[in-house]
């Protein structure tokens, strides 16, 4: 086998952006390069624990799954554990566990990911296994039928047999958005799941699962030279595929407030979610929304938490954020900022919406001190995410490589938030947090029978 010289683009951490004057600021080491077959590789050392996280991100999310196959991107994620050329059914999971590791996979708006956290000395094993299934699958009809059963049971346990099942994470995109790619049922209609065929699996794999549509992130305790050698050895020979053009996933501009009701026969208390369409990713408005999210709904000092729980007593808990299926960094398309709560029937939805309006209006009178506090919370959250077992850091590095071709963005985030002025926050709030840009979804509890 011949390998051509690797095309290497290295971002030395000292050259990265995001320099802060804070002596406690934490810089993530980032080494980024591409294999000749197009695979993007990000390495980040962290010797805190003798473990390593290997994460493979494919540029295929549920947004762009086939139209007559809702839920297929997620069903397919399950198929990636069902057998490849060298590992039969159940063998991938066994391989990881018998080597002392844990694994998972997930399907999100704009990617599907697979990751293992292994003892550090098992890095080669994990890289081999990820390369093995990137090369090809060996799925039988039995495997497919089995996982159709598993996925339908997943939908039942998380949505169909659960009060507030799918609210608001699965529901809101369907109510807020107009473009099918953003507005369909990502978990899938059970009948669509049932109609998936082996040839669909084959076609989906051939279309989207290729090195030139993927990122490999390795975070943890490893030797760089060794890691690179194995990456080249196992991923280097994999063939590229011809990728289809990206469909138009843009959303038309929303001009009018939308209010929807959903009845829930398993719930006995009403719930409400309020969602506003987000500005485009990586713009000044986007970073401003990150700060607004902190001010409005993150943490016990946030405006919505204080007003809704402490002052009004409408609820004990308010959830909220940008991208309920991840975080504000790991998506690449239309998105909403949202908050939701469960409340009592004697409270009117209007009075809750009024609290949103009032909190948003108060953004007009925030001070620099408030913004500084939001930045501290954001930084603290970010540190927790990129510490941990390596997965959080791999998630950001892989997302930034996948969507922006620039994983070193992980070190310039704080700098971007710090550029946002008070005026920018007010301007963003005025433009995006207005009624015409929002969707309200109310759960009407319709529980008819009482279980004892």
């Amino acid at each position, binding site marked *: 086998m011949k390998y051509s010289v690797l095309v290497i683009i290295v971002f030395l951490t000292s050259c990265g952006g995001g320099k802060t004057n804070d002596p406690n600021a934490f810089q993530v080491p980032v080494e980024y390069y591409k294999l000749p077959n197009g695979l993007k590789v990000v390495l980040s050392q962290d010797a805190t624990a003798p*473990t390593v996280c290997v994460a493979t991100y494919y540029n295929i999310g549920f947004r762009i799954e086939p139209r007559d196959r809702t839920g297929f991107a997620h069903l397919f994620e399950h198929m990636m554990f069902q057998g490849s050329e060298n590992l039969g059914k159940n063998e991938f999971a066994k391989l990881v566990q018998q080597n002392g590791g844990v694994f998972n996979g997930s399907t999100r708006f704009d990617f599907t990911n697979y990751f293992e956290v292994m003892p550090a000395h098992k890095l080669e094993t994990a890289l081999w296994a990820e390369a093995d299934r990137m090369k090809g699958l060996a799925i039988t009809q039995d495997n497919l039928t089995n996982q159709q*059963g598993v996925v339908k049971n*997943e939908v039942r*346990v998380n949505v169909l047999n659960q009060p507030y099942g799918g609210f608001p994470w699965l529901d809101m995109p369907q109510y807020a958005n107009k473009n099918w790619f953003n507005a369909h049922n990502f978990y899938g209609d059970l009948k669509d799941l049932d109609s998936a065929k082996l040839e669909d699996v084959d076609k989906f794999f051939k279309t989207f699962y290729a090195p030139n549509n993927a990122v490999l992130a390795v975070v943890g305790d490893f030797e760089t030279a060794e890691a690179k050698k194995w990456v080249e050895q196992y991923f280097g020979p994999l063939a590229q595929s011809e990728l289809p053009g990206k469909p138009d996933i843009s959303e038309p501009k929303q001009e009018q407030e939308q209010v929807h009701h959903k009845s829930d026969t398993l719930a006995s208390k009403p719930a409400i979610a309020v969602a506003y369409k987000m500005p485009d990713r990586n713009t000044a408005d986007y970073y401003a929304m990150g700060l607004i999210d902190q001010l409005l709904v993150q*943490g016990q000092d946030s405006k919505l938490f204080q007003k809704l729980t402490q002052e009004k007593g409408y609820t004990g808990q308010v959830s909220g954020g940008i991208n309920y299926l991840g975080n504000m960094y790991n998506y690449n398309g239309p998105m909403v900022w949202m908050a939701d709560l469960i409340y009592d029937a004697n409270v009117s939805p209007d009075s809750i919406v009024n609290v949103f309006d009032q909190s948003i209006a108060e953004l007009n009178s925030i001070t620099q001190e408030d913004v500084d506090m939001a930045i501290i919370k954001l930084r603290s959250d970010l540190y927790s995410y990129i510490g941990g077992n390596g997965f959080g850091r791999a998630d950001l590095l892989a997302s930034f490589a996948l969507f922006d071709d620039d994983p070193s963005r992980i070190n310039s985030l704080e700098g971007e938030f710090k550029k946002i002025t008070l005026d920018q926050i007010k301007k963003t709030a005025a433009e995006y947090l207005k009624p015409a840009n929002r969707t309200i979804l109310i759960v009407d509890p319709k529980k008819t029978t009482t279980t004892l």
Partner: protein
Amino acid sequence: MKSFSQVFVAALTLLATVAYAQKQTPPAGGKPKDFKLPEKKLNTLPNGLKTTMVQYGAIPKVTIQLILKTGNVHEAENEVWLADLTGDLLKEGGTTTMDFKTISKKVAGMGGDINVGVGSDQTFITGSVLSEFAPHLIKLMADMIQNPKFPESEIGRLKDDLKRNLSVQKDVPQAKAQEKFLGTIYANHAYGRYFPTEKMLDSYTVDMVKAFYEKNFGAKRTVVYVVGKFDEGATGKAIEDSFKGWKEGPEISYPPVEQIKTNKVAIIDRPNAPQTTVIIGLPTLTPKAEDVVSLQVTNAILGGSFSSRITTNLREDKGFTYSPFSTIQNNKGVSIWYEQADVTSANTGESLQEIAKEINKLQKEAPSETELNGIKNYMSGLFVLQNSSPGGIIGQLNFIDQNELNESYLTNRVQNIHSVTPDQVSKMAREHFKYEDMTVVLVGDKKLLDKQMKAHEEAKKLK
């Protein structure tokens, strides 16, 4: 005919060899890196409060947790969730000098929140902030726990929150199943009182909260954990300064508990439910038992890991369920083992039978060395992961403290896992996993379930 079959066998062998030769064997990996449990610094103040500090990690954050040896276990029969209300009012009622809004702002300025969590045996006050604020967070937490205001003004709203939570939880099938399962095994004990009634919640007053606090909170029942990156001198001093004046409070004391062993089946009707929530299990060995590691290994083989036998059977073979698992749940001095799964309604009886079959198989036949070694490696790897985050480290240290285990439970853990033999696993399955002795709770469509109970009766007779 003989020659034909020989040819056939030869051809098959050849095919198998070819297929085998084409399959790559996964690379085995290198030599394990050293793993040492992170070093800890222990201290006890004159009033009995214990502290544990561990420097860990590279991220400039610190996790501080106050763990008190009190919780729902200290509630009387008509006081279910009073411990939760006490925790809520402790947090959101503020201190004698600072209201909750002020506290929230202060902690936000450190990059975090303070949360109060109430469990059946312990109460947790937790905060995770940027490193430089460790001493400040200690002072704030110390103030909260020693000088709670317990204001009348907040209790109505917090009781409403509990009532709302109660209503929501009672609609969740998994919570209903837990209520029934624990209520059966721990009948007449706080561990079995999963839900209060609305009327009970209505009856709670600030005076009852104050009395619960006086009776159960104090230095002797408290351990302060600090894990992460922090200034040890300043943080240690802050702990000493801000906790030394706290009352000693009550001694550590847990009421006696008895477990009820019954193989009763309880069906809770959830008309038209597409799935049945199944919990099946029984009392088991506590962490203090000599062969508890054998029990843990047996659990991991049976249902406690993704590659386990029950999970492989019910999920990867049959497709009956998405997230089956088994676990050992420990309370003070007592433990239970159970398998839980949400299975397709029509396959509930069959699922129970398959669980019985897997148990029976392990009872009759020791696992292979390969399977056992795989599970041992998994558990050893998991142990490293569990000790590789501030929250995980606190969890491990609290586990040995709460269960009064020796340090060697952690230091010899990997060695102890690896010394379990196949026969021990099989013996464990025979002695502590008797299907016919298990309590069964099913939350699902009763009319469908009644018809399937014959399968369970047959499974009980499996030999």
